[in-house]
């Protein structure tokens, strides 16, 4: 059993597929959710997948270096910044329109 399990020890590809799946899930959320907050949450999933991808590649291609870690750190910070502004917009919009359903937010449609 352990041998079998050991043979299936995850390599680079498994990790990358995990990242891609997570990213696609985030994308699905981004494309289908109607609540603005939920959209932001989906975006967080995608960002997280991206950060994970950095770390995975760092781990497998150049474990002595930390460039991937630094990039992941930046992604985290960016995500934080994004969520701050995003949430502020959502709250402001809510105050104005009394809803955060983005299917109503099409003022720019001609």
């Amino acid at each position, binding site marked *: 059993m352990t041998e079998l399990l050991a043979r299936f020890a995850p390599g680079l590809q498994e990790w990358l597929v995990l990242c891609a799946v997570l990213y696609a899930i985030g*994308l699905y959320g981004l*494309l289908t959710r109607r609540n603005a907050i939920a959209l932001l949450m989906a975006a967080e999933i995608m960002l997280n997948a991206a950060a994970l991808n950095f770390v995975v590649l760092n781990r497998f291609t150049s474990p002595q270096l930390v460039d991937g870690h630094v990039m992941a750190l930046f992604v985290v910070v960016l995500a934080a910044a994004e969520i701050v502004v995003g949430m502020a917009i959502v709250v402001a919009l809510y105050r104005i329109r009394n809803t955060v359903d*983005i299917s109503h937010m*099409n003022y720019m*449609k001609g």
Partner: protein
Amino acid sequence: MDGASGWMMQHAWLIPALPLASFAIVGLLVSPVSKRAAGIVATLAIMASAACAYLLAWEYFTLYPPGGKHPILVPWSYEWLRYQPGLSVNVGVLVDPISVLLLIVVTTVSSLVHIYSNAYMHGDHGFGRYFTFLNLFTFSMLGLVVAPDIIQMYVCWELVGVSSFLLIGFYYMKPSAVSAAKKAFIVTRFADLGFLVGVILLSYFGFRLFPEWSAEVGAATNGLAGTQPVDFAYLNHPAFLARFSELHVAFLGTSMLTLAMILVYMGAAGKSAMFPLHIWLPDAMEGPTPVSALIHAATMVVAGVYLVARLFPAFAYSETAALVVMVVGAFTSLFAAIIGTTQDDIKRVLAFSTLSQLGYMMLALGVCTTEYAAGYTASMFHLFTHAFFKALLFLGAGAVIHAVHTNSIWEMGGLAKKMPITHITFLIATLAISGIWPFAGFFSKDEILVSALAGGHPLVFGVAFVVAGLTAFYMFRIYFVTFWGHGRGEGAAHAHEAPAVMWLPMALLAVLSSVTGFIPMGEFVSLGEHEAHHGINLAIAIPATAVALLGMGTAAFLYIGDGRRAKSAALAMGGAYHVIKQKFYIDELYLFITHRIIFHYIARPIAWFDRHMVDGGVNASGWVTRTSGRVLSFMQTGQVQTYGIWFTGGVAFVILILWCALL
């Protein structure tokens, strides 16, 4: 150039330049400040120009005395426009007998008209504008006269056209004047289309044949250095004409020379109002009367005759072209004379008389050939005398109109007593145009008749002979109706003599109309070695005078008295009279063609086509886009998400497809 030594000869460009300078100065500086000063400056400039012209004539004929050979000189020229290497247009001054003749005519008549206008236009709203335009016209006409090449001719040709347009439409608040101006410009413009194509043909073939010609005649050594393919010196050169006439137009079966000349003649016919392009001239009488005297009687309308005379060797070389000139001229002279007998408006009668006389000049040019060129002299002679007596007639008519405030001869009458000076001068001019000895018209008309007969065209002679009688008839008709009898209209009762500023030019012109006939024109203007005949050919002069007297007598019979006889005569002619009075319905025909055919069947469909078909094509594609957009509107939600779905899916799909295709 060779022999051109006199000061005036060297500075001949001053003659057109003075009016041009005056045009700019009066138009921009003087006219806004003082109206009176505008008139005075303009008049002085033209008079200075006239003085220069006389000086030039004196110098020229001192250098080349009458009776001898008269070379064509180009004392001054300057490269103006270089189309391509070997094809340049020079602006210059050409001096030869006919240009000197025309310079004298134009500056003289123009000066007198300027003087006259100072009084005639007095108090008019557009006084300054009037003199500005008049100066522009004089400049353009002088530039046309001295043109050494066909392009300068064309340039000035258009400029006289536009000044004529501006002056006919001088009373721009008057719709009839506006439409007359428009008509004049467009009709002549149409004719100029022919001229332009002719010019293009001449430039092209001139340019093509130039190297051969240059080698053949040894241009560099024969005093023709610097000649350009558009210069008259080249275009009239026999060696060029010989080569040019060898070229044939495949589909017309004529020589290229004939085609070019007929096209050029089209321009000439437009400007000189030959049938069927004559329709603008009677309407042009809507302009101020001095303008009619200057432009539409004495100077601009003879530009066509002058152009044919200028290119005479070329016309004569192509016999077909000369034939066209002759036939059109003869027909126009008869046609216009017939119409002239029925018109009521004094200026229109004079306009038809101008047409008829222009036809005479053209006819005279058409009958002569290179071997027998008497008609050339006769035509120029008639041009010269006609300018004076016709200007005088118009100025006289202007004085009458000024006094009576109407154009209709039937509202005038009995003016002989009230306006004695006008009466006398008008009578002199009438006698002159009718061809009564010793007035100027007699001599020039005689020469034309002689040349027609001697040139071997008895039919044309017959026409000219009949026209001589008709001319006397209609001129005396208006003379009797206007000056004899008793006043019929309100204005005629209160008429009084014109001021001195007006009658002085008239008196001067009367003198000129009386004496210019005695100038031995053949001594001054002739073509080649052939000597024009001198003196009077009695065998022709006596019948011509007789027919003129006959016309005079008929007019006296019909129109002295209460005019009952005239009415019954008109009735007796029935429908024919009506047709003539309506000018053979030519105007209506034109109106039909332009409005019905061109506006309705060409311009409107094109406008419609553009709006609906071409534009429709564009709009249809827009419509397809919009409609498909509406059909696919579930994509057009305005929401980023929907777009995002399609974007991601699309990109992924395309990449997958490509991937599969590549692997």
